[in-house]
């Protein structure tokens, strides 16, 4: 195992950020930690990168204990924090040199690893890091995190607030790094990014809801799921929620995703119910659940 986490707990005063988290990440895996703000993602990551001590439980990265072996471990891991934490008043090149020197290496020594990414910002190497655009800052931060050729790369929400195009490019960079043999542990609040990972852990309120491949996670959804729409989506939501057999009704893109207490509910019955209430262009069809459907189902079960 490249990362092994056992029953980690962390409290801030009265607030329980992590309530007994356990997970394993295999060597060479691209592992996603997926959950909303406040779920405990950053706490777990800060423990893994030795910046925070757990209250209970233990964790190792590349067989090194995150508390006892922190000095050794820091040399072996690459960490990209959620906030831009390079030196804004140093240039691109100066930042790279600084991080290389801190880790006792040079840009040239591990250039192969960062070449792909660094080349995209090299034309601006004289520019101060604080004056780069969001996308370029991100590429510089990733280059700096890789400069000492780490075995594991740990990234805290690298795609938050980033547009869909840049997000896609960033994931392509991660995939290329994985092919070069680096184990990657990445957190994200975007559920749709789950499908880009080998395995994912869904986290909410300091608890892991499930850990599996994205395919198996979606297969675990136990209800029949219906996609429904009409010309008036606002009223469609209300009318469906008023139905005594309705279990959950939520917007999912252009359709509503609906589950029923009665699994035998037929499309025709739903159709008649809505047209009877004056809806036009009603569409009802069975659909495949996504990671978000599963997440919502698991978090509601966990709450009750």
């Amino acid at each position, binding site marked *: 195992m490249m990362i092994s986490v056992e029953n980690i707990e962390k409290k801030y005063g009265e607030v329980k950020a992590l309530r007994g988290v356990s997970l394993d990440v295999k060597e060479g895996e691209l592992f996603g930690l997926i*959950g*909303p*703000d*406040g*779920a405990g993602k950053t706490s777990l990551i800060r423990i893994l990168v030795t910046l925070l001590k757990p209250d209970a439980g233990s964790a190792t990265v590349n067989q090194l204990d995150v508390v006892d072996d922190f000095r050794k471990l820091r040399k072996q891991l690459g960490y990209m924090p959620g906030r831009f934490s390079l030196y804004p008043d140093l240039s691109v090149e100066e930042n790279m040199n600084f991080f290389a020197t801190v880790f006792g290496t040079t840009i040239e020594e591990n250039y192969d690893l960062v070449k792909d990414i660094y080349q995209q910002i090299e034309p601006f190497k004289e520019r101060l890091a604080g004056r780069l*655009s*969001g*996308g*370029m800052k991100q590429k510089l931060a990733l280059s700096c995190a890789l400069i000492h050729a780490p075995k594991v790369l740990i990234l805290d929400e690298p795609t*938050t*607030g*980033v*547009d*869909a*195009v*840049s997000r*896609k*490019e960033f994931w392509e960079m991660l995939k290329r790094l994985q092919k070069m043999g680096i184990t990657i542990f990445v957190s994200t*609040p*975007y*559920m*749709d990014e789950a499908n880009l990972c080998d395995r994912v852990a869904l986290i*909410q309120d300091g608890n892991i809801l499930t850990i599996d491949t994205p395919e198996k996670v979606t297969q675990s959804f136990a209800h029949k799921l219906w996609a429904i729409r009409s010309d008036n*989506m*606002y009223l469609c*939501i209300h009318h469906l929620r008023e139905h005594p057999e309705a279990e959950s009704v*939520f*917007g*999912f*893109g*252009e359709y509503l995703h609906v589950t029923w207490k009665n699994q035998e509910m037929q499309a025709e019955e739903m159709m008649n119910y809505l047209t009877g209430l004056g809806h036009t262009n009603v569409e009802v069809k069975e659909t495949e659940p996504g990671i*978000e459907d599963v*997440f*919502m189902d698991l*978090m*509601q079960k966990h709450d009750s």
Partner: protein
Amino acid sequence: MEKENTVIRVRDLVKKFGHFVADDHLSFDVYKGEIFGFLGANGAGKTTAIRMLCGLLEPTSGELTVAGLDGFKQREAIKRRIGYMSQKFSLYEDLTVHENIRLFAGIYGIPTRIRREKTEELLEKLELTSARKKLVRDLPLGWKQKLAFSLAIIHDPSIVFLDEPSGGVDPVTRRRFWDLIYEAAHEGITVFVTTHYMDEAEYCDRVAIMSAGKIVALDTPEALKKEWDATSMDGVFLKLARSNE
């Protein structure tokens, strides 16, 4: 007819910073009660455009009317007539729920005689009556988001601007928030919203996509998907919104 229902009218709107053209001849209309999605890659010129529409930034040239007011000469009046909410909610964390409501009601000039009534009405609607004395800091994120939205429309504006309002919240909270948006639109408030979640683009009546300072597409999600031969708005966005770095 069309003019009566047009809440925002934009013609050849340009904003330059020095030689840099952030917004390059934007033209579009937003109609009453519509949910209008405004998408684009980082740096495409969205934020500059929104700041002009909200009266925060003076355009370089073109025509701009928001809620019947001129975007060049009546910017102060525009600020009072619109609602605005960003991802960083503008709530005061160290004030209670009740104090925040009173503060915003005061800022937006709600007359004193109806302020109390309005406050109680809002507390009840948000199911926050028992939490009225709680500090906003101690509220769960989803409640803060609901409160921030309700305060952004406490003065019954004809239009509310939502700048990435749903970042980072869990999927249930995110959808409950869209329930509020639907409700506001149903009541006739025009909603102008930016988002990075492409599924949310599908909830909009019409969507404009910006790239490199220009509007490159504007239509209903359905028509855009058809035109760009995509099964989702994500597909449309990836085809249109080239990163301009």
